[in-house]
């Protein structure tokens, strides 16, 4: 959409435009990077961050200075790994050891890789990888350990997957395999980030004791992407939807895209979305454990985008025909709501959940399960942010007033006395002015004695007109 297209679109969607403006005008990044003090290699890192990531670059750059470089380097290292894995022109004999030993290159000064095919999108990152290694070495040792650890896990996970894809069929069959796949591509990253947050004291250490929480964070995002991109992936001959789910609705995966199987495709999509929604409670629980605003924003924005994307996809046949995306205005509104606090974010989740709930239909075999999962999300939000408390109910029973009500009454009484005071002052002022006017009139020769006599004799008005006799 060009400028004119945008203008026409926003002219007919003023609320969307309002959201965009709100975001652009009112969003204050909690931390801004200080470009002046950055070294040459740091600048290169940020250049690559912009090049390789569309969605993450903005939130990463607003992170607290303590975590700004660790997360940037972490992201670029994983991106490098990804670029090797994605490249189908590299033979397995080269690729497998490269992936498995990628953690070691982090300690080799000046290492870079020129073996990618020219059309590989992020090829340049690996060609100049020595800069990222240099920056990696500048990080605190604790951060280096975490990043190396996760690189090791992810590299091995990817290598396993490549070997499996080469030797046998690597298609995702069971829901368990689906979770495992998502874990390798997104969950491990979540683990690394959580460890970085806790190390920097920006996250509750209890997050490390409950790994299922950060696992859900990663899985929820990854599953949402897999659901949304089903058409694009299918056109690229990739399929990630587990057979265990789609086989309940269609006989062959291709059937999902045939118009005569529309109902089956929608029901299958519902089941996929149901599977993803089961992570929401744990995601909110995880977000409750974050203690720093920029880290919260960093985690919350993708989550709210994900649930809104699920809402967009739910019972929407368009996603089997083309790639669909949430609108720019909605995205801006979500970003505004995700960069405040957990309470505001939970309200967003409740709203979006209800929107999903509303589209649920009893024709769907998973109708009841979807309804229950939506109910559970609401119940969970109610447990962290109760709308009513037992103490209030107890007080109500006894006919006592709650703290807020007492406050309110006090405030009301205060404003009442203020009002009286103001009116009294006004009355005094009126009296003074009237007095001054009377005195002035008397000095100027007013005959109040005559006026008084007239009033007593019942003539409240001066006689209507002056008659001839008076002349």
């Amino acid at each position, binding site marked *: 959409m060009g400028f004119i297209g945008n203008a026409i679109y926003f002219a007919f969607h003023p609320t969307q435009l309002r959201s965009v403006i709100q975001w652009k005008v009112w969003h204050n990044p909690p931390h801004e990077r200080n470009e002046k003090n950055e070294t040459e290699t740091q600048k290169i890192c940020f250049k690559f961050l912009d090049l390789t990531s569309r969605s993450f670059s903005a939130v990463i750059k607003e992170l607290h200075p303590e975590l700004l470089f660790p997360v940037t380097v972490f992201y670029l290292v994983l991106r490098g790994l990804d670029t090797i894995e994605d490249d189908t022109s590299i033979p397995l004999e080269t690729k497998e050891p490269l992936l498995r030993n990628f953690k070691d290159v982090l300690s080799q000064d000046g290492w870079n890789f020129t073996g990618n095919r020219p059309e590989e999108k992020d090829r340049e990152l690996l060609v100049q990888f020595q800069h990222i290694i240099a920056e990696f070495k500048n990080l605190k040792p604790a951060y280096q350990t975490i990043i190396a650890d996760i690189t090791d896990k992810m590299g091995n996970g990817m290598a396993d997957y490549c070997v499996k894809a080469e030797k046998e069929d690597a298609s995702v069959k069971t829901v368990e395999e689906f979770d495992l796949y998502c874990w390798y591509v997104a969950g491990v990253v979540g683990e690394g980030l959580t460890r970085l947050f806790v190390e920097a004291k920006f996250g509750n250490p209890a997050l490390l004791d409950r790994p299922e929480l950060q696992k859900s964070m990663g899985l929820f995002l990854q599953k949402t992407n897999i659901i949304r991109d089903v058409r694009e992936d299918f056109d690229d001959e990739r399929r990630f939807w587990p057979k265990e789910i789609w*086989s*309940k*609705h*269609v*006989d062959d995966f291709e*059937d999902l895209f045939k118009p*005569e*199987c529309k109902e*089956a495709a929608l*029901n299958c999509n519902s089941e996929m979305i149901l599977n993803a929604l089961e992570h929401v409670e744990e995601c909110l629980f995880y977000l409750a454990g974050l203690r720093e605003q920029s880290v919260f924003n960093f985690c919350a924005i993708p989550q709210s985008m994900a649930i809104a994307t699920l809402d967009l996809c739910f019972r929407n046949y368009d996603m089997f025909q083309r790639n669909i995306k949430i609108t720019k205005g909605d995205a801006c509104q979500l970003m505004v709501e995700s960069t405040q606090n957990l309470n505001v974010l939970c309200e967003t989740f409740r709203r979006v959940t*209800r929107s999903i*709930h509303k589209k*649920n*239909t*009893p*024709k*769907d*075999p998973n*109708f*009841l*399960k979807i*309804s*229950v999962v939506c*109910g*559970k999300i*609401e*119940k969970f939000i*109610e*447990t962290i942010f*109760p*709308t*009513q408390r*037992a*103490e209030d*109910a*107890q007080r*109500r*029973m006894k006919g006592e007033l709650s703290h807020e009500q007492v406050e309110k009454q006090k405030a009301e009484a205060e404003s009442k006395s203020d009002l009286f005071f103001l009116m009294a002052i006004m009355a005094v002022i009126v009296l003074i002015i009237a007095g001054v006017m009377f005195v002035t009139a008397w000095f100027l020769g007013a005959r109040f004695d005559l006026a008084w006599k007239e009033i007593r004799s019942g003539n409240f008005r001066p006689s209507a007109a002056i008659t001839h006799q008076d002349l």
Partner: protein
Amino acid sequence: MLHPSTAVMPNCGIMDSKKVLVTRGTGFVGSAIVRRLAEKYPNCLITVVDLNPPRPQQDLQERVQFVQVDVTDADKVDEAMDLIKPDIVLHTAGIIPPLADRFRRRLEEVVWAVNVKGTENVLTAAQKVGARAFVYTSSCCVTTDDMRFQYANISEEWPRTSTSLIYGESKAAAETLVLRASNDHTATCSLRPSVLFGPGDCQLLPSIHACIAKKETPFVIGDGFNLWDVTHVDNVADAHVLAAENLTTSQTAAGEAFFVQNEEPITFRDFCLAIWAHFGHVPPWEIHVPKRLAYFAGLICELATWATGSSTTLSRGSVQDACAVRYASGEKAKSILKYQPRVDLKTGIRLSCEEYADRIGVKLPRTPFTPKPQARRL
């Protein structure tokens, strides 16, 4: 779906060769408790006390003894108690006013006599013969019948109301009696299930099913997002057995009340839609009736009822019921009683619909809810 951890029978022997008395043991909840007890403790001695003898189709198992007693008759209750000398009493007898009388005071005396006086009789008699444990079947209505408020995720710390509807008031008064009576000789506790459903249900499912014939299914009162708790009868039965186990062992539940439900809050609309779908009915369209309008219509109906002396389904009370938020946190029952719902909502609704279809002689159509939906290939 059976929960694997509770499907195995834990604590075998706690209640073996104990004498258990179940009041209203042929009723909806009572008979489910008897089934569960007999299954979990093949060696305990179960006596069912009821106003009416079991109907032919509810043949009690042979080893279950039956005694016919009216709980409102204190002497008869004493007599029966003396005869049985139970170790454990599960008191499920109670009366739920029919919907038309739920919001009125016409049946107050009867309800009070059975629910409060009856409970007092059974409790006193149980204490006299030295029963160790007394489990009372209360209701979430002890709190939620106060229609002025909404109840989202409430806990047991919420107060019992003394001014609500006749049912809630009577259950609250009886529960207070029971919990106060807990002492070293007789430990008591109270379970508060929410709206019950399950095979054998004569109230909820039949009236929801009847909406199809009455063509009432398209109407939605309010926004339809208000969540309710429902409870499968087998889960309540489970909770009773767990409570009895607790009161005869650690007694951590003594003097306590517990909300018991399926832990799957659902909008009442969806609960109905799921049942209708089992019977092959999907409302062709939806009409949203604003709450205020419905409330006004309810008022008109009530006036008409008052004038003609008939009974009504639509009233201000039933409109408030339809828009009410009523669900509880199950944390206390989970941590103290180790209660976990064994029958989930989906399975529970399917089983209930199958049983009800059987009862009324209807064959359930093949629905989207049947396990493998048809993947049509043209």
